[in-house]
């Protein structure tokens, strides 16, 4: 393997002088590289001929288009698979590995597929290994192991890789930094618009940077900004234009950013590294050019067969002599310019094989003649010769027999261009064949979406510049796009034929190894439409998603199916235009999801709380031992953070009326200073919420809601206020107020010295509320609780959350005050038989069945859910929520397990816990009304299948008379 020559000069082109920058490794071999080298160009310069193995047949593959479309140059870089070597820049020290070969790239045992698979029936994996039945799992495993490209690194070393979503809102977004894109960007900027230019390569200019032709404006250049480019070589012209674009204040250039989708409403998605750019523009100009047309002939995939633009890039951008002896296959003057370029680079050009019967007298043709290079008119390439790399080509008449072998190590396919239509065609219909230009063209574009440049068909640089300028101006002003025009000499009027030599190695789809023979066989099986053919053969479903082969597939299908070329059409083009990693689409790290924290959150964390998610909230589940916390409340004093509760304040003339409409019990008899437990039902009478309503002062009410329903109830109230045009001032005090519940028989003794209200039972009885000051902090005190103990709920400004929490714990220390979490609270409430909506209820729960019918006063007034509650009130519920108790020592069932009586399932347990106070298991269960009477034995099936026995109890298991609560 000898390194290829790095050129220092070229007679026709000013080569870049790029310094050496270091080396990387390829399968353990040291590969030096220069500045601006891609991994592929560095490998090619180092004499590497074998880059990868093909997907199905494991055929040797090498650089083909040099454009970053094909799967031929997929490598693994530092563990990241499927990196396009002709796009990825070479970097010092990177570890590049070949893929899809075993045990090595040079000696790949799976290359046996190249012999065996063609002998199998087409689509064999659909047809074979299904009988006997035991065979398929084995075959499937083998096929799966053999299939796929690359191996994902699951070691986690990329876990810290950052994926960002970034947003841009330009007036005009230009996709593509070639001549048309540059001109469009400048033109739009000159019209006073903010422009974003997306260019997938690191430098602006596109392929015109390799173009030897002179810019000529056959008509007026259209803009003074372009006038000085007339007569310059195309590469000089675009370099000058690129400098202007880079200097323009109103143009933002995102080099290295690849647009992979253009969605409706001019929404462009682009990827740069691990960043996803979401661009919303008033106008989008797609100018992402064209790539070389793919020619189908025998063994057209051998290393050494490259496209014309790949050769131009190798010579002009990387100063590499691509081969020692070359044959150029063409049908237009561009092929002759490539022959001249190769000749200047020191490659012996053995011939220019021109499909046209008469090459004419174009300047480039004449130049080749003057160089003494042999021209073979009316001929095309019939086959490539070689096994691991190209040794020769066989050329012959376009139609007819007779072949000539020409030895060469480089065959250049310069057979015209295929516009890159995906971005324009996505979701907008299929491209149609334009016989005049000899290319597929995009369907009619919606307003605000424009096409410019080679994407409309190839043309000389002067015309591309002019078209870009005009389209840019139209996009800036929101005008319809000017008509695209092409000169006759721009068209490749005769396509070189895809010569069928009858072999099985005519590759149509290089990515998926789909051959012409396979296509023919599939067509014979009935898959004669391209969409079904694609799905049956996987044609165009590979890494490049048909960008290389879409045109070849369409024309060969038309040829094989005997349809006119005009009726050929490619498959539907869909996003993404280039492969996009899931990380880019998924965005930021999941640990950054929004959580809501109470004002005391930090204190809970410092105490080692175990948190649980309650919707978006983080609440302390416990501080290590929920049972001990529950016991502390019963025997001493406990403090729980209940800041997550919803807190809504209503005032105004219609406040009581609104609450009377939303709650199933009116509030007009609720005296100021009093609190009432309430439930809420939906229109269908289903219980979904409970809480408390407090009458703070005449006309001002305060509603506390469950954590999960707070936002929804606030929104519901706001909606009804607007809907009924009520005079209600509604304030959501949820984020403004922290809240704690001080629970236990010593709570009054702890608080009384520090508050300015009388806490005695007579002055401040159960279910009352007062405004007060505690530690000089304004608070609202509510004598309510969920635990069954004497309790005070304290609501106070959130900014005092930590301080007052600390203050209470400090003052409560002599009283044995202990913080407790949600889990202890759940135990305590079960000891009192209290339900939690959403936990002990479901989407069918009636308040009457749930035992909270006392919260519903149906009467004559109108309120939400009245119709259903009125009907249910007179009926005995089919199911009831009951408290049950287990025998001491019985295992406690999980929430949700089933309840049986005799051999019939009669219900389910909604909550169950071990009660430290009672020394046994307790819970709530929905059971059939026939089994809801106190004393009924329930058979509860544990998760492990065992049954335990429970007994329905009539009252709360703990303090059934509520003496402690009211004490």
């Amino acid at each position, binding site marked *: 393997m000898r390194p290829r020559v790095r050129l220092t000069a070229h007679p026709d082109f000013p080569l870049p002088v790029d310094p050496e920058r270091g080396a990387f490794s390829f399968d353990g071999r040291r590969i030096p590289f220069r500045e601006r080298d891609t991994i592929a160009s560095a490998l090619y310069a180092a004499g590497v001929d074998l880059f990868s193995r093909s997907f199905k047949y494991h055929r040797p593959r090498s650089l083909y288009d040099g454009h970053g479309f094909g799967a031929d140059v997929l490598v693994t870089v530092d563990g990241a698979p499927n990196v396009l070597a002709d796009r990825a820049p070479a970097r010092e020290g990177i570890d590049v590995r070949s893929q899809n070969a075993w045990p090595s790239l040079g000696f790949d045992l799976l290359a046996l597929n190249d012999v065996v698979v063609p002998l199998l029936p087409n689509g064999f994996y659909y047809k074979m290994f299904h009988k006997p039945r035991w065979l398929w799992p084995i075959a499937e495993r083998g096929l799966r192991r053999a299939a796929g490209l690359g191996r994902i690194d699951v070691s986690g070393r990329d876990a810290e890789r*950052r994926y960002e979503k970034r947003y841009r809102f330009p007036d005009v977004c230009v996709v593509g930094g070639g001549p048309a894109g540059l001109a469009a960007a400048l033109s739009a900027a000159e019209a006073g618009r903010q422009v974003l230019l997306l260019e997938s390569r690191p430098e602006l200019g596109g392929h015109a940077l390799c173009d030897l032709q002179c810019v000529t404006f056959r008509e007026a250049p259209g803009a003074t900004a372009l006038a000085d480019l007339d007569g310059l070589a195309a590469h000089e012209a675009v370099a000058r234009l690129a400098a202007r674009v880079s200097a323009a204040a109103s143009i933002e250039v995102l080099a290295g950013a690849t647009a992979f989708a253009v969605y409706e409403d001019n929404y462009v998605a682009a990827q740069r590294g691990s960043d996803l750019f979401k661009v919303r523009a008033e106008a989008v100009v797609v100018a992402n050019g064209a790539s070389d047309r793919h020619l189908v002939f025998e063994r057209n995939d051998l290393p050494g067969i490259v496209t014309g633009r790949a050769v131009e890039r190798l010579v002009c951008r990387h100063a590499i002599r691509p081969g020692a002896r070359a044959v150029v296959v063409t049908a237009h003057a561009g092929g002759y310019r490539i022959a001249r370029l190769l000749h200047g680079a020191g490659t012996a050009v053995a011939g220019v094989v021109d499909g046209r019967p008469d090459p004419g007298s174009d300047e480039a043709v004449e130049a080749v003649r003057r160089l003494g290079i042999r021209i073979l008119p009316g001929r095309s390439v019939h086959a490539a010769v070689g096994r691991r790399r190209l040794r020769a080509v066989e050329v012959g008449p376009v139609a007819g027999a007779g072949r000539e072998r020409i030895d060469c190590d480089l065959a250049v396919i310069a057979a015209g261009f295929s516009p890159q239509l995906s971005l324009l065609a996505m979701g907008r219909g299929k491209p149609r064949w334009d016989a005049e230009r000899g290319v597929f063209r995009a369907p009619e574009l919606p307003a605000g979406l424009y096409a410019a440049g080679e994407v409309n068909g190839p043309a000389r640089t002067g015309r591309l510049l002019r078209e870009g300028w005009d389209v840019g101006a139209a996009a800036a002003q929101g005008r319809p796009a000017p008509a695209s025009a092409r000169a006759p000499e721009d068209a490749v009027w005769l396509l070189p034929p895809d010569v069928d030599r009858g072999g099985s190695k005519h590759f149509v789809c290089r990515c998926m190894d789909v051959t012409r023979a396979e296509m023919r066989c599939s067509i014979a099986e009935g898959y004669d439409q391209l969409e079904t053919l694609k799905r049956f053969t996987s044609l165009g479903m590979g890494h490049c998603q048909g960008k290389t082969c879409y045109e070849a597939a369409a024309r060969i299908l038309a040829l094989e199916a005997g349809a006119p070329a005009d009726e050929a059409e490619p498959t539907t083009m869909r996003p993404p235009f280039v492969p996009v990693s899931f990380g880019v689409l998924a965005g930021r790290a999941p640990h950054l999801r929004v959580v809501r924290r109470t004002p005391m959150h930090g204190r809970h964390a410092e105490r080692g709380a175990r948190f649980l998610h309650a919707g978006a909230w983080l609440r302390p589940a416990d501080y290590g031992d929920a049972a001990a916390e529950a016991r502390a409340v019963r025997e001493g004093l406990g403090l729980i953070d209940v800041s997550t509760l919803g807190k809504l304040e209503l005032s105004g003339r219609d406040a009581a009326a609104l609450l009377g409409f939303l709650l199933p019990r009116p509030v007009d008899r609720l005296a100021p200073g009093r609190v009432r437990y309430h439930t809420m039902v939906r229109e269908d009478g289903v219980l979904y919420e409970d809480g408390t309503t407090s009458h703070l002062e005449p006309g001002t009410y305060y509603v506390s809601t469950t954590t999960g329903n707070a936002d929804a109830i606030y929104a519901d109230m706001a909606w009804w206020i607007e809907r009924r045009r009520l005079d209600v001032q509604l304030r959501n005090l949820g984020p403004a107020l922290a809240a704690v519940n001080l629970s236990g028989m010593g709570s009054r003794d702890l608080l009384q010295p520090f508050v300015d209200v009388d806490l005695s039972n007579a002055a401040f009885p159960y279910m009352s509320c007062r405004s007060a000051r505690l530690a000089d902090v304004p608070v609202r005190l509510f004598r309510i609780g969920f635990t069954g103990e004497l309790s005070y709920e304290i609501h106070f400004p959130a900014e*005092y959350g930590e301080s007052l929490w600390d203050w209470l714990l400090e003052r409560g220390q002599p009283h044995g005050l202990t913080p407790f979490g949600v889990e202890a609270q759940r135990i305590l409430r079960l000891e009192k038989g209290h339900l939690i909506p959403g936990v002990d209820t479901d989407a069918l729960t009636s308040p009457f069945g749930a035992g909270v019918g006392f919260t519903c006063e149906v009467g004559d007034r109108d309120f939400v859910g009245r119709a259903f509650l009125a009907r249910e009130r007179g009926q005995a519920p089919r199911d009831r929520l009951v408290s049950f108790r287990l025998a001491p020592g019985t295992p406690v069932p999980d929430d949700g397990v089933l309840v049986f009586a005799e051999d019939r399932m009669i219900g389910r347990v909604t909550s169950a816990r071990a009660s430290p106070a009672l020394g046994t298991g307790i819970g709530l269960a929905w059971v059939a009304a026939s089994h809801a009477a106190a004393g009924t034995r329930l058979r509860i099936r544990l998760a492990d299948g065992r049954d335990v026995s429970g007994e329905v109890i009539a009252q709360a298991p703990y303090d059934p008379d509520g003496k402690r609560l009211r004490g």
Partner: protein
Amino acid sequence: MTTLAKRTPLATFHRARGASWVSVAGWEVAAHVEGPTAEARACSEGAVLIDWSPLAKLSLASRQLAPGTELPPRRAACRDGRALLRLAPDEYWLLGAPGDEEGLARWAGAQGARPYELTGAYAALLLAGPRRDEVLERSTALDLRRDRVGPGSVLQSTVHAVPCVLYRSASWDLLLPSRDRAESLHAALLDVGRGVGLVAAGVGTLPIQLEEQAGGH
């Protein structure tokens, strides 16, 4: 009686970072988080994120506002250290120096409006520095192009999925999320801003002081 300190939702974060503290109108607030030198450098070269939560905040309804004080929707005016933000056709916010709630309420009262205090309910995160736009472009889908959303603009949207009010002045952007989501938003902003030199800073670097803004009141 004890005078208890008011704390911002970022108190835990700042404690964990070893911030130095200062008392502002009864609030304990971070004076410096990464140190004066690092914060000053980030402020001039990168971006800083500062907890301005003690900023006084009041809300009032537009129909309560006296004639002549209205602003166009989504605009703000700031004079004498107080800012009036029009969030929506029927909703205004008043911002002022820490502890100025009573002054703001008096001003609102003079306009015949009944204000509601929001100081503790909402946090205020100040984003300043030359690269702050690069933080915002990674944080919200809002169009924040400076020629479209200039100083004095007020927007309501989500930033990192957190509902926020965004108030833009010439030299900073102020994000006002609800208190309970502030720590999440702060963490997300710091995370995306890491690559552009964003650091958490304190009020010692940029004291809580609203920037004058031409407007109607």
